[in-house]
């Protein structure tokens, strides 16, 4: 019939960023026949274009730049002999049955039909655009997402603009502010709609204060004006409900707007399989081995949940690979029963969504609002740790042992409680 190239694998990893690379390395180490697919002509994902430090502190116990961080994995890949293809775009995933999925991949040599027992989906995230955050006005040139600006600067050596306004004070916005400042551009302001900065405190200090860049909290860019290129933005103060306060509008002259208003897990290919999605993360719902609601399809990295650190992303990739191994050996993930992980007081999101109680689990969670002097608790298993402060920008990690988890009967609840809290 057709002469499409067909191959069989145990694991197909889709997306060659840190999550995918870590998953492919681990799966290969575990003796699974594995292939890693990457759309771009290079592996590495986002860290490849991150020339700033702040990578690897957790995983390598060293402060590395993104580029150094990812190169360590390239070396491992080479040593272990991980099979991969670049310039390979995954077109679609077909679920044939429990033990057979097909990954249709477009390459310059033709379409590959890769039959696989499992899939690890690690395609990263997509950035929110100007239109998603409701900015109105003209649509001139000079508007970039942070990722696009970073690619231009640190892969292709092009400076996007000279007078810059940055929308969003998450780590991405803060780091880009410094990156522009280092390049001699004037960063007029970083605008943040929340009453607190979205990124890590160390980044607020190192990226803004050290460069005298103003941070405007509880402010929003509402419109952009410019004929050929951006000429100015209109900024307004917002109330607690994020509504613009009339009469507080002012303009900032600039030639460039960088949007760092958050990322969304890129789940297009999975959505077409009608996978269960968690509205809180925007990513798939998963169990403790990061398996989605479709058996044998695992997800890790920013495609699962927006992570602050590439280190966590790597751990997720490895976890998913271990999941794939267990899935293949047992024809599914063995579990007596899946218990939901519930979000309690001041918890905005938590990963995973289900646990078996039969394995140790690392839970990652984010709070809804900043708080000081709190306990993070899992009452069902008697877990309780003290935190000086919790902030939405910093994921909380809870390492729960198999023994502790065996105490949970129906579900576990993650919650944050101030020291003096009485329920």
């Amino acid at each position, binding site marked *: 019939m057709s002469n499409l190239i067909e191959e069989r694998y145990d694991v197909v990893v889709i997306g060659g960023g840190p999550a995918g690379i870590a998953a492919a390395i681990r799966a290969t180490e575990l003796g699974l026949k594995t292939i890693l697919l990457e759309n771009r002509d290079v592996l590495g994902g986002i860290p490849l274009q991150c020339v700033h430090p702040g990578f690897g502190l957790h995983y390598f116990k060293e402060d590395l730049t993104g580029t150094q961080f990812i190169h360590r994995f390239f070396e491992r890949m080479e040593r272990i002999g991980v099979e991969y293809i670049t310039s390979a775009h995954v077109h679609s995933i077909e679920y044939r049955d429990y033990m057979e999925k097909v990954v249709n991949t477009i390459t310059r040599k033709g379409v590959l039909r890769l039959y696989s027992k499992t899939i690890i989906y690690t395609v990263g995230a*997509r950035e929110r*655009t100007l239109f998603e955050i409701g900015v109105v006005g003209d649509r001139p*040139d000079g508007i970039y997402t942070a990722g696009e600006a970073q690619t231009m600067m640190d892969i292709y050596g092009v400076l996007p603009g000279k007078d810059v306004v940055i929308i969003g004070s998450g780590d991405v916005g803060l780091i880009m502010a410094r990156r522009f400042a280092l*390049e001699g551009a004037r960063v007029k302001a970083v605008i943040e709609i929340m009453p607190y900065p979205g990124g890590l405190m160390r980044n607020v200090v190192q990226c803004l204060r050290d460069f005298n860049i103003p941070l405007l909290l509880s402010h929003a860019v509402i419109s952009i004006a410019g*004929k050929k290129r951006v000429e100015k933005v209109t900024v307004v103060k917002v109330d607690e409900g994020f509504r613009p306060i009339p009469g507080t509008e002012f303009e900032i002259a600039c030639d460039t707007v960088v949007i760092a208003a958050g990322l969304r897990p890129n789940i297009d290919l999975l959505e077409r399989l009608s996978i269960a999605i968690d509205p809180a993360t925007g990513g798939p719902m998963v169990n403790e081995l990061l398996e989605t609601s479709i058996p044998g399809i695992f997800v890790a990295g920013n495609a699962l949940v927006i992570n602050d650190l590439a280190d966590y992303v790597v751990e997720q990739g490895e976890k998913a690979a271990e999941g794939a191994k267990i899935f293949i050996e047992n024809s599914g993930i063995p579990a007596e029963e899946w218990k939901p992980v519930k979000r309690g007081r001041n918890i905005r999101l938590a990963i995973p969504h289900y646990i078996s109680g039969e394995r140790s689990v690392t839970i990652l969670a984010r709070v809804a609002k900043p708080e000081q002097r709190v306990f993070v608790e899992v009452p069902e298993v008697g877990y309780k740790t003290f935190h000086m402060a919790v902030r939405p920008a910093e994921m909380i990690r809870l390492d729960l042992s198999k023994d502790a988890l065996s105490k949970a009967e129906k579900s576990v609840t993650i919650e944050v409680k101030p020291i003096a809290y009485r329920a």
Partner: protein
Amino acid sequence: MHRYRVAIVGAGIIGASIARILSMYENIDVSLIEKEPDVGWGVSKANTAVIHPGHEEDPKSYPLRARLCKEGNELWREWVRELDIPAKWPGELMVFTSDEEEKAAEKYIEFAKVNKVPGVRVVYREELRALEPTVNPDALGAVYAPTAGMISPMEAVIAIVENAVENGVKLFTETEVFNVRVSANRVIGVDTNRGFIEADVVINAAGLYADKISNVVGVDTWFFIKPRRGEYLLFDEDVDIKPTRILHTVPTLVTKGVYVVTTVHGNLMIGPTAEDLPVDAREATLTTREGLEYLWREAGKILKVLPPRSRVIRTFAGLRPEPPNGQWLIKAYDSPWGFVNVAGTRSPGLTAAPAIALHVLEQMRSVFDLRLVKKEKWNPFRKDIVRVRNRSIEEIDRLVETNPDYGEILCYCRMVSKAEVVEAIKRMKAIGVKTITVDGIKFRTYAGMGKCQGSFCRWRVALLVSKYTGVPLESVVVKRGSYGVGDVKLLLRGRAAKGQG
């Protein structure tokens, strides 16, 4: 055989259609003159894209509009086939939600009879819901006009120009006409920023600026254009609320109604608003908070369920070139001899464009007494770019076999390959585009039109433009501005360092 030189000012849908019609004749040399770097960047770029049936045009007040709208609707069916333009013919429903609206809507049944628009009738609840399940259950009924269609207006302009150039028309881009030269009461040509272009006939199809061109000639001096803005919301193609039919509210004295449509590329689109602007606001295509809120409310009247607002991927606006009396000013003048106005091209100008072109030819024939000779070999056909999108994997595999560039996907959201981008660049060069813009490629390939709005692919497209034109990456033009302002290493070393290197 006498030769005629014809200069058309403006490569919008109307200028382009006229160029195509004139390209059928052996003894006409056509220059199509456009101030922008590419064709179709004026009014024709941002509109509702509906091919109207003709039942909404009042035959008493606007007989020309009524006639050419209906004829245009018929002609487009042939043109989209010949030129391979994305189009569909789902019919439209003018939805009414109250007795007053129902009364107002009945008028269009009468118009339809006079204008000979086939099939127009009122449908009530059950039939309405059968025709369009996404409609608001509170709707009482609708005026159904089965001949309404949708088109991709920008691609239509591009296709028509490609075909016209293939048939001998010469396109001048980045060429702005600022004067029509007249000598001995005859038009002799146009003055542009690139010099004088000789012509025996000058056709003014300058869209929003047509009154300026008309005024320099000094004809119909009462005529002026007032911009009327229309804003739109466009949703991601993954949104599952996609009306099959074209839906809209009942027009009032102030508005033509708000449309809820699924574009030919499968995106839900809501719009337009109708806001009169000052006479000089001819570039004011900005969007406003109020305008978008209004659309949201109006769409709620028509649809059963609105998609989540977070799925909006783009908002934009266009300007209607409104004439003072609602009438199109289409006229060939014998004083000065050789001037033709096609001005005040408000809606349904897109629908009528092919019919307007034929009408202009008739006017020219009768007023200028042209002796025209048909070409023996006129090619009515043009093929669209071959795309990866919407193809089976077997088909994609065969495409890659013919050209490996089809195997390199640059735009994830719309699945656009390198081959398509390269082909677009080639075609832009072939029609005479001087500055290859990333936006021009976007309109030809859809790269950057999806949910990420180009944040993943703009640099990849810009890199290809750089490679195929020799322009440095930072200087590649996106829409009107350059992609970057300098080179990072250059800024570190200082300009002087580069001079030495």
